[in-house]
């Protein structure tokens, strides 16, 4: 643990030098989205009556899903460029490996740092939700751990993939054919029941849908309605994090040993 925390410390020191721009965007992005989708689009949606979303305003429906989806996007980014940078560009992971730190410390330390970043982004996002009056109840804060868990369910396997890459060329594929469609079709903006049946099945496979549904459940306090489904979400997401972290450790070790 102590060794791992030194890797987190390194990432934090690097972050301190650049946080101004990213802190601003992690505030501005939810403001823009909640304004455009929540208030603008939501204004029309709400005219159809509150029954479609089970008595919720569109903003209340959207906010927890958008929180989780936004953290997913940030997590995917954090698991790509910083990883190949450390292995191939600045080679800081090689520098760390020349010290008593193990490849596992390096891998898990970087993932731990991503979790810290996701918690920061989710906290800012949640504050914006509250500012917009879109918080259904104080349970809104429970969206933060769910968003972090979902973010890590993306970050861990993507970091494993990044550990095998020497250039960012294939990252476009992840974002274009993975992250962006999931962002749109995982129940963030509308219930997946609105999708044609085959696409609904695809949504169930999406880790983001598990996160969005769980996030909505804990934030809106409806978790008791379907306890087994919620438990399943938790298990699926946790399992992806564990397997992804293990794979990241192994692949980073392989890469560092090769030189």
């Amino acid at each position, binding site marked *: 643990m102590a060794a791992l925390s030194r890797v987190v410390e390194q990432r934090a020191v690097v972050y301190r030098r650049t946080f101004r721009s990213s802190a601003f965007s992690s505030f501005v992005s939810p403001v823009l989205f909640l304004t455009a989708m929540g208030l603008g689009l939501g204004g029309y949606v709400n005219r159809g009556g509150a029954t479609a979303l089970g008595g919720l305003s569109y903003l209340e429906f959207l906010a927890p899903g958008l929180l989780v989806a936004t953290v997913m996007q940030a997590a995917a980014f954090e698991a790509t460029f910083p990883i190949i940078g450390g292995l191939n560009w*600045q080679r800081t992971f090689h520098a760390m490996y020349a010290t*008593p730190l193990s490849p596992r410390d390096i891998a898990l330390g970087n993932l731990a740092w991503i979790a810290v970043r996701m918690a920061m982004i989710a906290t800012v996002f949640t504050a914006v939700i509250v500012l917009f009056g879109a918080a259904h109840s104080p349970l809104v804060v429970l969206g933060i751990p769910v968003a972090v868990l979902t973010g890590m369910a993306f970050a861990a396997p993507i970091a494993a993939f990044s550990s095998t890459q020497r250039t960012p060329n294939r990252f476009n594929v992840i974002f274009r054919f993975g992250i962006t469609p999931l962002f749109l079709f995982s129940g963030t903006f509308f219930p997946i029941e609105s999708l044609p049946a085959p696409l609904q099945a695809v949504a169930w496979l999406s880790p983001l849908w598990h996160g969005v549904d769980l996030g909505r459940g804990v934030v809106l306090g409806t978790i008791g309605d379907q306890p087994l489904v919620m438990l399943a979400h938790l298990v699926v997401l946790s399992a992806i994090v564990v397997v992804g972290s293990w794979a990241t450790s192994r692949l980073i070790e392989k890469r560092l040993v090769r030189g």
Partner: protein
Amino acid sequence: MQEEPTAPEPALIRARGLTKRFGSFVAVDAIDFDVAPGEAFGFLGPNGAGKTSTMRMIGAVSPVSDGDLTVLGLDPRTQGPAIRARLGVVPQQDTLDTELTVRENLVLYGRYFGMSRDECNRRADELLDFAQLTERQNDEVEPLSGGMKRRLTIARALINQPDLLLLDEPTTGLDPQARHLLWDRLYRLKQRGVTLVLTTHYMDEAEQLCDRLVVMDKAKIVAEGSPRELIERYSTREVTELRFAPDVQDRLDGKLDGLAERIERLADRVLLYADDGEAVAVAAHERGLEPETVLVRRSTLEDVFLRLTGRSLIE
């Protein structure tokens, strides 16, 4: 410790039959060597000779394929982190944190060794002074010159007061002035008793820094000794270099015979090995040879390498 007082000082590094394979490719082929405490030990050889693979095994970051290796009395197979805790490593390629300042690079690196922040800062002050980087301590790394980055890398490698400093091609890519500055710093470390192990394909670097070296070629050690011993054993005291126009050199056959103990023909010049180079130059002139330039110089490790392998160090 348990040793008897009369026992010789144990080697810091001991390798027997040390081998590194990548699949079917043999990068290091059963080499033997010892490095004693306080000495500056070099691996001299061309690119691809197996020097870096050897260094990475010593550094406990690349598993030994075969043979025995002990570093600081420990086994890299099972005690990697404990070995790395007592090493300083200057890799061939810079691994500095370019987004951070010079000082932050030093302090964070100390943290990887588990040193306290206060201790890291104290060491950083000393090392900034040693590396002549105190004035640049709050600058980011990226705009620094190549020589400054190397000095910072060496300073960083010293943060944990290592028992052994490993330097892989420490001055490759630097201009002559930066190299001399770096050699001066390494020489000071040597004076302080720090054990240095370095690889190089520059014979002048090996001569400047190494008390003892092994010459590596094609994954094997082909000779071992101090620079002076190697030159005495494998070369003559002096060398006369004759440079001819290319077509003239091709038609020389026979005309040089007997002028020197040994003759090497390179693409652009002929090397005549003898203890008295001036006498060779005079004799060549008397034979009516008309080289474009004549240079008499002392033998170097480059000549040793040429003798041992038939090739130049830098190709």
